[in-house]
């Protein structure tokens, strides 16, 4: 994915690129894989076809505005509730579930300590 700011959009898009000199367009795994950006066009958005009157906006150095990478615009707010009232969510809902130290079972910790002391090649993965 790459940002669609090249088209003046604030949302994200999938690039469909055409390499300079190639016949068929190919979707790029990475923007860098395109040898040269020869043009840009917005193919569609997630919810509608593109209003062609406003696009494409040509990139500096583009040879053809009608060829080169095509962008499918996917506005992120089209998929999720962007109108959630965050103030309505109580503090208890966002508190860490183990925030209360008293909830820790000491016998379980002692068992872990015993395993660590007996281990020859222990590793800790923390995230």
């Amino acid at each position, binding site marked *: 994915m790459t940002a669609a700011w090249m088209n003046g959009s604030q949302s994200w898009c999938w690039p469909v690129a055409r390499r300079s000199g190639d016949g068929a367009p190919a979707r790029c795994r990475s923007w860098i894989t395109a040898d040269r950006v020869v043009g840009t066009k917005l193919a569609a958005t997630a919810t509608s076809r593109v209003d062609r009157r406003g696009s494409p906006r040509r990139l500096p150095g583009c040879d053809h505005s009608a060829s080169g990478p095509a962008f499918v615009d996917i506005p992120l707010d089209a998929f999720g509730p962007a109108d959630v009232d965050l103030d309505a969510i109580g503090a208890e809902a966002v508190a*860490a579930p183990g925030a*209360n130290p008293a909830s820790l079972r000491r016998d379980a910790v002692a068992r*872990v300590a015993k395993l660590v*002391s007996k281990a*020859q090649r222990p590793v800790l993965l*923390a995230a």
Partner: protein
Amino acid sequence: MRAFVEQSRVPTFVNGMGRGLLPADHALAFSRARSLALKQADLVLVAGTPLDFRLGFGRFGDAQVVHLCDAASQVATHAELAASTAGDLASTFATLAESGAPASTHDDWATRLRDDEERSAPRRSRLLAADSAPIKPTRIYGELRSGSTAMRS
């Protein structure tokens, strides 16, 4: 966590969300020897992260696995665990530090992992200083590292 790691001399790897829990230049902080560590470890403690596909669903060869979580609902039920804890992770590590293994028990193991990390150092240095065009992403890290080193000194 740092007190436990230093007291028990346990080699430690941190994922992205755990970055900063242990300084990257700490004697017990490792990153590139992860593959060797997880293959040869006899005990793997996983703290604060699920045992999902990113961690092989909690299977690390023949190693015993311990899952340290901040809530009982987060403890893996699909993996065979030697032990688990549920509760405040800071308290968990503090308690472990109080009752951990004697220091230096695992120093040979840590040295092996450090040797493995050092073996890849020349290749890493080349990537960090790569002068190719288009620029290698590793070069960015190399420049940031030299910049941050200069800021610290």
